[in-house]
């Protein structure tokens, strides 16, 4: 089972991202679940969402305590909460930021991961470019696909088309592809 935890703030599409992941995994024939952290949802407040992907039926209901993949949609959260709680250091870490882990002051944590398991990318900037809104979620989903290889891009595209009308879906698909390409390039350069 592959477990994902996404941290962000209300309005950044954290819950939608976990939903899209689970739908994409489902369309690839896998079992998956996703759910939000059930806070009182409001713009700007810290939000978490969870997803699990497995080859067999998933019965567990607890939040993801030990994520194989941790996605940080908002780097200001490093100061607010312990986003690394329970993180599995043989897993992956994806951060929406144009800064390096050193510049973010989290290299004491990120150095515990293997090479190429921690990636930062300017997802908000890419989102502004492709969807004209500061919603980094679909860029990060593309990056997720590139980094983890758990989900393929066509499945993500189908999930996005299934959730949104064409006018919203197509720019988000472009954003997903941009996130995917960004990480692939990073991986090739290292």
């Amino acid at each position, binding site marked *: 089972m592959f477990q994902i935890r996404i941290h962000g703030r209300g309005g950044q599409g954290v819950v939608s991202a*976990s939903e899209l992941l689970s739908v994409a995994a489902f369309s690839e024939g896998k079992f998956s679940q996703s759910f939000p952290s059930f806070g009182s949802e409001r713009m700007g407040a810290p939000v978490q969402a969870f997803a699990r992907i497995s080859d067999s039926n998933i019965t*567990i209901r607890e939040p993801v305590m030990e994520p194989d993949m941790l996605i940080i949609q908002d780097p200001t959260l490093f100061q607010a909460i312990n986003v690394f709680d329970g993180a599995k250091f043989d897993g992956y870490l994806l951060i929406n930021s144009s800064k390096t882990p050193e510049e973010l002051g989290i290299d004491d944590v990120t150095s515990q991961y293997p090479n190429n398991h921690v990636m930062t990318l300017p997802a908000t900037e890419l989102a502004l470019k492709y969807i004209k809104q500061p919603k980094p979620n679909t860029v990060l989903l593309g990056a997720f696909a590139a980094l983890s290889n758990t989900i393929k891009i066509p499945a993500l595209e189908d999930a996005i088309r299934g959730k949104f009308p064409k006018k919203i879906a197509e720019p988000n698909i472009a954003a997903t592809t941009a996130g995917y390409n960004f990480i692939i390039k990073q991986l090739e350069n290292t």
Partner: protein
Amino acid sequence: MLYQMSGSIAVAKAIALCRPDVVPCYPITPQTHIVEHLSVLVKSGQLENCTYENVESEFASMSFCIGSSAAGARTYTATASQGLLYMMEAVYNASGLGLPIVMTLGNRAIGAPINIWNDHSDAMSVRDAGWIQLFVESNQQAVDVHIQAFKLAEALSIPVMVNMDGFILTHAITRVDLPEQEQVDQFLPPFVPRQKLDTEAPLSIGAMVGPDAFTEVRYLAHHRQKEALAIIEQQAKEFAKIFGRDSGGLVKSYFSEDADIVLVAMGSVIGTMQDLVNDLRNEGYSVGILSLRSFRPFPANAICNALKNAKQVIVFEKSFAVGMGGILASEIHMATQRFVGDKLIIKSVIGGLGGRTITKKSLRKLIDSANKNELDDEVFMDLDGTTVVRELKRQQEEQSSGPVAENILRDIGVVSASKTH
């Protein structure tokens, strides 16, 4: 057909497959998405011949249900928590009049203190209201049990409440196999009411009943619930035959037949327990689970039968009677005393209150203590003793110590101090 969707949307679609005639609704978290999606299905014409009415309150909603069901219409609604309390008088009337309404309860805590998250306090507040109360473990069961609920309600002419954990199930997106319309039509025949208000053949429903007949009318309500025990089992079998799935029934064992320690619980926590039991059995623990799928009627015989080889039973519940303790634990105790005797050790665990996360880790600690015969008779799982002691001390030291909830929130740092000590 298989879909990946939220529990709420899946339930709305399942209700539509049951062809309800009338759906009066008042939205409340966490069931809002169910009634919202039903309104979409009616408005878009996907659910035909259905009157959808967004009424002004939960009291109006259940009253509307009573009226439409008495007029012979297949009737559905949903509510939760304070909404259920607000409709309470009508909830008793619906069952007292013997009206086969189906209602989803998106289980949520009851205030004060105000809390929108999941536990079973709302379901337990109506445990004596005369409704059949079924619990589901997953969104697949939520779909399947709602379909069975209409058939059960209409067979016996009593209302059925399907309990579905708020957020944990309603808001979770999982794989769901939605049945085909033909399958549902095959399983669920058109509604033939036992009583019907009809201008062509006038009759009255809801007479005042005095001491000369009240006992008999109430006894018959009890009798009907006892009849439901057999019908629930029979319908689950019939359902399995048509839909090819095990869903519903009175109880469900998970390795409990040969286990020394058996966890007893209701609802979605069963899923996490199954995951834990898989781990523990691999490690050689003799542990199993008994899921109570029907709470009313209370399946005492089925429970005793399932627990007859157990040495220790841990009853886990997401609510309790303040001043008494675990409700389910006490009922299980009573039921098993009569049939199994008092050699069975029964422990009561209260957990998951107001949405507190139920972790595998905490459940495992319970099993480990039980295994060493060290589990207390009554346990509040993950209770923060330090916080409790601090507040008790405050109350002891000062008569005007202030509101408990605000004091504790300040102690744990959720709100900044509004008052200094």
